[in-house]
């Protein structure tokens, strides 16, 4: 059974927190879609602060509990949490590489599907995901009755089951007690493909359950928090610095202060194209600005015949005039092989830095190369 989180959800906010099973809060899908994620930024520009916001505020949810607080809400004071300090620029990290433990193709695909339903993993980029899976290390459990984790103890690892079954016990007191009874109630069993302990990937919280092996020669894969969070940090850090460097080379944007560049780097969103895909089409209204992050692309102009007039490679950018005016695209850009670009739209740009014209005016914009004007 694939059980990716502890049932009863151990509440690490305080000792003696009791757990129920899973999420008993009533769900209302239709109402959920009215929430903020479908909010006012659906491509059109939206100004806050004006007395007449152009988009209506999110609608209330009809399913919202009206009779006060749902009983289960924990109204106690909440404690802060924090993880180890992570600092990408400190010297000790300079040569840090995530550990790599070789796995067979079968093992990898089993691991991939084991973590696919976990939101911490499912949003990872391909490169991050490979690093994370590579860092999982085998943990052999030779006998029955071995406690892999103990309720109440500090939690540092996340586990995926490769072989064997593991029983999960919860003691309602929040910590394991003495003797066999001390483990509390058996709440579930986790078998191959299941995983447990993922809160340890966030910060060090007391374990919410005890996990014990039920047979000999079982195998787990495990991953520690610092490795996991460093992988995420390093790739985010590198991506930001790469974007900032790319942006620094765009003449139209070279009057931006470094902090403005890093704001734009923040707003860039990755987008992927397959070989032959049209990234921008001649004649279309221009809205987005592109940085070519990996791969190559070719530029075609209808009045220049069937051959490409220009090639773009990693670090090149195009479409920047879209930030300035709404003129139609002057050429098409087509992916040659797999291409990854980073995109920011005119509104995204303006939301962060104000009207583009103002920024351009800091610059002599006649310097912009003709051939670049896609």
């Amino acid at each position, binding site marked *: 059974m694939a059980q990716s*989180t502890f049932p*009863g*959800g*151990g*509440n690490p*906010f305080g000792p003696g927190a009791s*757990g*129920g099973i899973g*999420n008993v*809060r009533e769900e*209302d899908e239709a109402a959920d879609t009215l*929430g*903020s*994620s479908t*909010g006012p*930024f659906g491509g059109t520009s939206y100004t*806050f*602060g004006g*007395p007449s*916001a152009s988009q209506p505020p*999110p*609608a*209330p*949810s*009809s*399913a*919202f*509990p*009206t009779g*006060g*607080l749902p009983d*289960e809400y*924990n*109204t106690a*004071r*909440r*404690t*802060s*949490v924090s*993880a*180890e*300090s*992570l*600092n*990408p620029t400190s010297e000790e990290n300079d040569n840090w590489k995530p550990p790599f433990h070789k796995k067979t193709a079968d093992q990898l695909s089993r691991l991939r599907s084991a973590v696919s339903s976990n*939101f911490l993993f499912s*949003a990872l980029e391909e490169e991050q995901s490979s690093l994370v899976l590579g860092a999982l290390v085998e943990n052999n459990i030779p006998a029955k009755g071995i406690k892999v984790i103990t309720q109440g103890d500090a939690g540092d690892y996340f586990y995926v089951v490769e072989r064997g079954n593991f029983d999960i016990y919860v003691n309602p007191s929040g910590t394991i007690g003495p003797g066999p009874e001390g483990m509390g109630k058996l709440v579930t069993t986790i078998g191959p493909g299941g995983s447990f302990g993922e*809160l340890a990937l*966030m910060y060090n*919280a007391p374990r919410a359950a005890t996990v014990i092996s039920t047979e000999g020669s079982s195998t787990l894969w495990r991953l520690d928090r610092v490795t996991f*969070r460093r992988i*995420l*940090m390093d790739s*985010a*850090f590198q991506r930001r610095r790469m974007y900032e460097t790319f942006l620094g080379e765009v003449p139209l944007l070279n009057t931006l202060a*470094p*902090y403005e560049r*890093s704001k734009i780097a923040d707003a860039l969103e990755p987008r992927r194209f397959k070989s032959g895909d049209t990234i921008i089409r001649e004649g279309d209204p221009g809205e987005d600005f592109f940085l070519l992050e990996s791969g190559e692309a070719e530029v075609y102009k209808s009045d220049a015949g069937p051959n490409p007039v220009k090639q773009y490679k990693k670090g090149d950018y195009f479409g920047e005039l879209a930030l300035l005016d709404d003129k139609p695209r002057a050429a098409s850009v087509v992916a040659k092989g797999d291409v990854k670009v980073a995109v920011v739209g005119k509104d995204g740009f*303006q939301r962060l*830095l104000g009207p583009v014209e103002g920024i351009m005016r800091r610059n002599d914009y006649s310097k912009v190369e003709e051939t670049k004007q896609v």
Partner: protein
Amino acid sequence: MAAALKNALAHPIHSNKRNSQYRPPPINEEQKEREKRFVLDFQNKNISACPDTNTSDVKERALGAASKQLRVQDFDLVKTLGTGTFARVWLSRFRGQTSECKSKVFALKILRKVDIIRLKQIEHIRNERNTLAAVAGHPFITTMITSFSDKDSLYMILDYCPGGEVFTYLRRQKKFEPETARFYAAEIVLILEFLHDVKGIAYRDMKPENILLDAEGHVKLVDFGFAKKLLNKETYTLCGTPEYLAPEVIRNSGHGTAVDWWAFGILVYEFLVGQPPFWDKNPMKIYEQICGGKIRYPQSMAPDARDIIAGLCKVNPAQRLGNLTDGSAGVKNHPYFKTIDWDALYHRRKKGPILPEIKHAADTSCFDEYEDAPEKKSVYTSDMAEKYDKEFKDF
């Protein structure tokens, strides 16, 4: 103000060649008296409650400077006001028989070095002291008047906020009246504007538990344990309170001051609804909901409140209100705040919507009862002092 007074903390005796081993510095009785005077006088000025009165001390950087003279023995610890993960905050006053000593009280926050080391919070504690010193004097932030240390512990003398936690009032009332919520929200906007735009500091632990009320019902932000000066660079260490963590903190993609605007959106929601928008018994489920960013609003919530929350709680920080080109002005100009006179608010011209019932300066009836400090105390050994005392030298 007498010149001697002004200089009281302006020139703390700092030895540059401080040995890593703790050695109690010799006490200079005269200097100590000046420092006591400074601490006592702070209250006279603070009571007038006008944000401009403290400016000269702030400019001279006297407020918040470390003291090498004060000792915990100089204080009576009257009662525990609150406890955190590793701190205990005491209502305290100077030991002494004068009526001034008896009538003037402070909040003394005590942190044990062993606990700080055990919980790997050295960097956070340093940030806390240094950001509190940097922001001392703001009308809505608790003022650290001075700090000091001894062999085992670190101490911060804070102005006492007798009203207790906004959290307590919120839980008692279940949810706030719209105007009460708006008032607190607006004062907090002024705090964030100051921290972000003037000081470049991210606060990173916004929640009703960390907002206290002063005698006139104005907010005072406490607990700068996670505050950090950012210098225009993103930062990565996960910290905060589960229900208030921003998506980029959970995903570890690097975060900045925008996390405070996210948490501020959660806060306004909790003020108006009585519970935060993302909640589950299982914390991982909370984090999954946060990263999904779908908020459900009750029918009773006004449209402009819904709109500001939706703008603040944008999963993508590049789209988040408060983090856009107009910064905190974007929040202040939102229709939700159209009735707020920001200048009057900053100058505390009106009293707050909830006036704490306080009978005298040292009244602690707004605070919960706490048990005495636990007995089992691990010791800060001289080996540890050798290794770590240099980390605490700012105190």
